[in-house]
């Protein structure tokens, strides 16, 4: 009997709902049945509501089943799992599942499709061709391609990547330049970086090497948050493999290019996702935000010129180099070019990864892809762009998702995370939580953030308690002004965004009688 290839994701989201157990059960079941199987632990396709999603390779392609619970395995095997047999969990051809087929998987194309740690698999699927091309290019040419593509930093700020690279390229260094990948993906509702690192680590590595060649940097560091142990382990192995294959090291692909890469693990601090705090942390210090100037591109890690890019940004690079800038450039709207990898989470029926060109609407993402709330109750709000992003009502569902259009409605695309809330949400408490979160995660350097966030919680508490509500609403408004204009970094200056959007769009929640409030945070736990 020929060897059967089964894909069971090792993505940590899949593992969190039992994929390890499912994989084991399938192996045991196959053994029992005397069927030789090769179980590949792939990344997730991003259809997280279907996890664990088991794929079997058949003559007709990869057939999917999901979500597979441990107790379904015997039944599945009996139904002919290894031959792609029919079952109530059958999803048919995975590539043809509409949820997936409708997407523009530019950056996420290989995630879930390949064995994340198989270099052969990566190369067989076109991986590394960007790097092969890049080693033959002049740094200026690479930078130019990136500029042309319109790629902007996916970490949230949306700064043009090519411009950043050319600054580093033009900054003279006496000895060393760095590429730092920011994998401190702390925003609630975002998990794209994690899925990339777990599902296609070589793309991250390839992107970093290309960034190095483009800017003259020879040392790379990936700063991963400690909450991502699987991503850390996968990246570490992938780096080892890459050294072994001569992709990394003193002679990249046998050329004169040199690039070293290692992993640094965070230690539980949201603010270290802010690029200058990340540099401090990488240097072994308290994760305190630095003032700019100097820009990290001029004086970054250890004072050296440093490229700092988000994981998703870097993972987009290899294909842009491989394809040339035109394809990427042709996607998107306005100044927001290419695709964004949206992450739909929270109270959503079909959560996961949706990669589409900029310009898509929340309606498409939340209602069509997401299928509405998981609870079945009507949607009240979505928060876009992480804990510092705006809470939007469904009336904003037709605004195209791009940097500029969202800025116009006092919101932001951020890192592309979309968190859905149903009508049970109390938006005054969500506003308070924004302040609580800021107080919890503030580095403590600047006054508006350090003291302001704590006062913000107190003021909202008084508003909720109807204690001089009108005066405190005015004070809250002024505090938001102060934090926005006065804070040193985005943490303090963006915390007012969720607060203000809650006030703007859900004002009624701030005017309830105290008794009608829902027992939320604060009462149970004091931070």
């Amino acid at each position, binding site marked *: 009997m020929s060897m059967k290839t089964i894909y069971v994701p090792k993505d940590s989201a899949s593992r969190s709902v039992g994929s390890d157990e499912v994989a084991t059960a399938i192996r045991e079941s196959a053994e029992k049945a005397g069927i030789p199987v090769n179980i590949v632990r792939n990344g997730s396709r991003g259809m997280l509501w279907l996890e664990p999603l088991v794929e079997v390779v058949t003559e007709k392609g990869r057939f999917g089943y999901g979500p597979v619970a441990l107790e379904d395995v015997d039944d599945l095997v009996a139904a002919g799992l290894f031959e792609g047999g029919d079952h109530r969990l059958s999803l048919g051809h995975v590539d043809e599942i509409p949820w997936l087929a409708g997407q523009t998987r530019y950056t996420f194309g290989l995630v879930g499709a390949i064995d994340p740690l198989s270099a052969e698999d990566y190369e067989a699927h076109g991986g590394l061709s960007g790097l092969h091309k890049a080693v033959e290019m002049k740094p200026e040419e690479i930078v130019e391609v990136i500029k042309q593509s319109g790629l902007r930093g996916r970490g949230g700020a949306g700064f043009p990547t090519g411009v950043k690279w050319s600054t580093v390229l033009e900054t003279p260094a006496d000895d060393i330049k760095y590429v730092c990948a920011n994998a401190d993906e702390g925003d609630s509702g975002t998990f794209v970086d994690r899925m990339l690192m777990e599902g296609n680590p070589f793309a991250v590595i390839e992107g970093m090497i290309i960034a190095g060649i483009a800017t003259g940097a020879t040392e790379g560091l990936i700063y991963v948050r400690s909450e991502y142990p699987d991503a850390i382990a996968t990246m570490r192995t992938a780096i080892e493999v890459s050294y072994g294959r001569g992709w990394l090291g003193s002679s990249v692909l046998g050329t004169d290019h040199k690039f070293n890469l290692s992993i640094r693990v965070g230690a539980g*601090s949201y*603010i270290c996702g802010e690029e200058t705090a990340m540099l401090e942390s990488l240097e072994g210090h*308290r*994760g*305190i935000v630095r*003032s*700019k*100037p100097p820009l990290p591109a001029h004086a970054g890690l250890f004072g050296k010129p440093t490229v700092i890019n988000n994981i998703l940004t870097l993972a987009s690079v290899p294909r842009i180099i491989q394809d040339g800038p035109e394809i990427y450039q042709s996607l998107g709207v306005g100044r927001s070019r290419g695709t964004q990898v949206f992450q739909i989470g929270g109270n959503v029926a079909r959560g996961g990864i949706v990669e589409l060109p900029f310009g898509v609407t929340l309606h498409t993402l939340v209602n069509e892809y997401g299928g509405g709330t998981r609870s079945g109750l009507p949607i009240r709000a979505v928060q876009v762009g992480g804990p510092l992003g705006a809470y939007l009502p469904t009336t904003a569902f037709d605004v195209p998702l791009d940097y500029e259009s969202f800025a116009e409605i006092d919101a932001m695309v951020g890192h592309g995370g979309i968190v859905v809330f149903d009508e049970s949400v109390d938006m005054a408490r969500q506003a308070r939580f924004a302040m609580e979160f800021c*107080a*919890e*995660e*503030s*580095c*403590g*350097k*600047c*006054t*508006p953030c*350090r*003291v*302001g*966030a*704590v*006062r913000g919680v*107190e*003021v909202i508490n008084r508003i909720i308690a109807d204690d001089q509500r009108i*005066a405190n609403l005015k*004070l809250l408004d*002024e*505090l938001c*002004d*102060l934090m926005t*204009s*006065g*804070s*040193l970094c985005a943490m303090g200056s963006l915390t007012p965004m969720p607060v203000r959007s809650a006030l703007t769009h859900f004002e009624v929640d701030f005017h309830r009688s105290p008794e009608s409030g829902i027992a939320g945070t604060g009462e149970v736990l004091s931070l």
Partner: protein
Amino acid sequence: MTLLKEHDLGTSASNSDVMVNVEIDGIDISVAAGTSVMRAAAMCGIDVPKLCATDRLNAFGSCRLCLVEIQGVTGTPASCTTPVTEGMRISTQTPRLEKLRRGVMELYISDHPLDCLTCAANGDCELQDMAGAVGLREVRYGYQGDNHFDQPIDESNPYFRFEPSKCIVCSRCVRACEEIQGTFALTITGRGFASKVSTGGKNFFDSECVSCGACVQVCPTATLEEKSVVSLGVPQRTVITTCAYCGVGCSFKAELRGDEVVRMVPYKDGGANEGHSCVKGRFAWGYATHKDRVLNPMIREAITDPWREVSWDEAIAYAANSLKEIQKRHGIASIGAITSSRCTDEEVFTVQKMVRTAFGNNNTDTCARVCHSPTGYGLSQAFGTSAGTQDFRSIDQADVILLIGANPTDAHPVFASRLKRRIRGGAKLIVADPRRIELVRTPHVTAAHHLQLRPGTNVALMNAIAHVVVTEGLVDEAFIKERCESDSFTTWAQFVARPENSPEALASTIGVPPEEVRSAARLYATAPNSTIYYGLGVTEHSQGSTMVMALANLAMATGNLGREGVGINPLRGQNNVQGSSDMGSFPHEFPGYRHVSDNTVRSIFEKEWGRVLDSEPGLRIPNMFDAAIDGHFKGLFVHGEDIAQSDPNTKHVKAALASLELLIVQDLFINETAKFAHVFFPGTSFLEKDGTFINAERRINRVRPAMRPRNGKHEWQIVCELATAMGYTMHYDNSSQILDEIARTTPTFSGVSFDLLDKVGSVQWPCNEKAPLGTPVMHIGTFVRGKGHFSETPFVPTPERTNRRFPLILTTGRVLSQYNVGAQTRRTENLRWRKEDVLDIHPFDAEERGIFEGSLVTVASRVGETNLHAHVTDHVPQGVVYTTFHFPGDAANMVTTEFSDWATNCPEYKVTAVEVTLRNADAKITKQPAINGEIAVHENSATAESVVRMANQLADVFSYLGEKEGALKVATHIRKFWSPAMRDELQQRVVAKDSSLAPLVVAAASESILV
């Protein structure tokens, strides 16, 4: 002066030469590129509100009070962290900014105790000032929210307290500890609202804090506050003066209420310290009003009699008559004086003038004899001037720093901070020291090389380094061709290139692996700018002068002289070692290092002083002791120095003192020397003095009186009155006139006056027509002597050898909290850090002897012994033990010997063969060994013994030249430095065919110049 508040421009100056034009609130200004908006505004007279910014520290951008609006820039950037750019148009006051600033202050005050009226900093608080400046009128958040009001106060430091409830978390203290002091003893712990300043441990006293006071100084609130301000109140007036501790010469603001000093605050415009300080200068000034201080003159017939307080007139008359009486009976040369390196130039000048006029001889010497005399000798041989070549600031341009025989973090802390900052900035450090001193490895500083040589082998090490430089082609030929004598260079180069001077050949002598020596030599020789800093570990050896010459050779050979970032720099021990040396304290030299036999020079002084002056050298300090023991020297005036504690071989010193008929001591306290005195003149503390100190960088700093002399007279007045009473009329209306006399008679000082110093702050000599504002860096273009001179530097080991009886080498030094003989620091709370001298001993040596941490041990050398508690540490290498000499009860100098530098008699404190034994516990009661004035037994006279030893040592040093030239060198040296009586003594030994005399000495004696 009323209280001087220094204008803080918020951020430090930019070094750029490029100028940029900006408009601030409608004012056009042109400033250096890189200047912050805040500083540019301050330069226009616009002080943007700020709390975390200060021009002493790097911009931080945390308080967010200093936000401004810039045309074309979105948002409100912080003016402290935003540099100006060409054409920038800035508004510092707009309704929006005012609202933001009030908002920030409102947040601050919502977590700040409202006790301004009872706060120690009331009226001297930046938070208070800023609340006023931004017009804060209400705190709408109330005071019921989360806060830090209940944080406990930390009173553990003796000098300042930490009250965290008042902290605004601006991190200025943390940054000052890092950026200015370089200790990193402070941090912020926690994060967010829980962020708080912390030492990371229990409290300040038990932390890594060295109590420099930088944190207290930069604190904008009462969070870190001097206890003296808490108890006495905010000061009202300022007197700018100079610290009286080490040779760094820090400028301070003495801040007073009435005539009571409240605190000493380092002065930002101080040339040497630029606003920094150490625990001694900043805090340990309380000795000035200590109850032990003697304020009335006293006399007694015999040292066994009790002291009798008398009037100044009686004391001076008694002293003058006794001195004259002695001279009548024992001759003109039977009296002399020792000047103090702790006193002002003006005071020192009057003492040596008194000796040369009223005493009629040249028996004047200074305590520089026992510390830096080889520096004067060695550097003048090479360059023609007896001083360091650079200003401290120059180190900022250095790429490699060779630190040898110095321990700046303890002995010159403010300079150490500067050095550490430069190392953190990228310069490489080479430490040559037998001990693993702090700078070998301390947070954020790691020496590139630690050449852990055996004590006493400095010259061998330098010869090995020079060997590498010469044989590996690392010599700066262009420099030598242009600036140095080619003959002496060639001779020297041939000498060091000899195989016996290679690092390999000398490895067993030096005790350092040859490859380490080679690599350090290459590092020094190949850097763009290499500089040398050294201390008493260089000078206090029997080859001290040779070593200084060897350092000069190395600097010349590698072209490291005559510009910023290079040079050779002695770190002077006491505050005015440089000045007291400059002022003609030496028995062979007038002020300005001019030999007494020089007729032209002598005539200048004879004309000025109206007396015929002696043209023969007088006695050096050790010669005085010998002559006293021999009965030829009977009267001594000791000015502000405690020779009985500080000078080597205490038994010998005390025997000499006990032999005197008259000992006059002028000091603040009854010190060890005063126990042998017949007349005690109470002196003045630096807070009462009016004059100048000269620091290690030749900087002439003003010392201004914060209060009237508590003893009723200035010290120079006392000296003048004594001279006058002896028959030589000496009078000045004020000390300014003394400096004018110095300027009149001494070319290197001809441009100096109180007026100039008051105007420009300080100047570095030479200060004259050619350099009216002084000379920060010397020897630019040419050396003072013309061409640089290379001297051969054969290594002649000290006769002090370890043996079976005394197998260990004792070396001595200082600790941070104490100073010299401790007379000042022992009378302050600095005792909390160190209350006795301890003996550092390596674990192996300790184990062999059954010694544990804290064991009481006896340290014995062939001349004496003392008892100390042991500190077992690997900071000393095996075979070497170390102690300090701060405490008279611990009597470290009981053990040190009579050996001294061949050229200058600087004692060999750094090498004494000793044995250390465990002392049983009941001996603790008699910790101090009995010391009395017993007369040592000498086979011949004490002078004869010394003369033979010194002459033989000279013969050893010059023997490499062969008999003829060697004898000439020995004779020339003796003629120049020895008193006639000593030369006679030597002649007598030669005539008596003393078999202990070296043949070269006998040959020298026949040289005509000797007689």
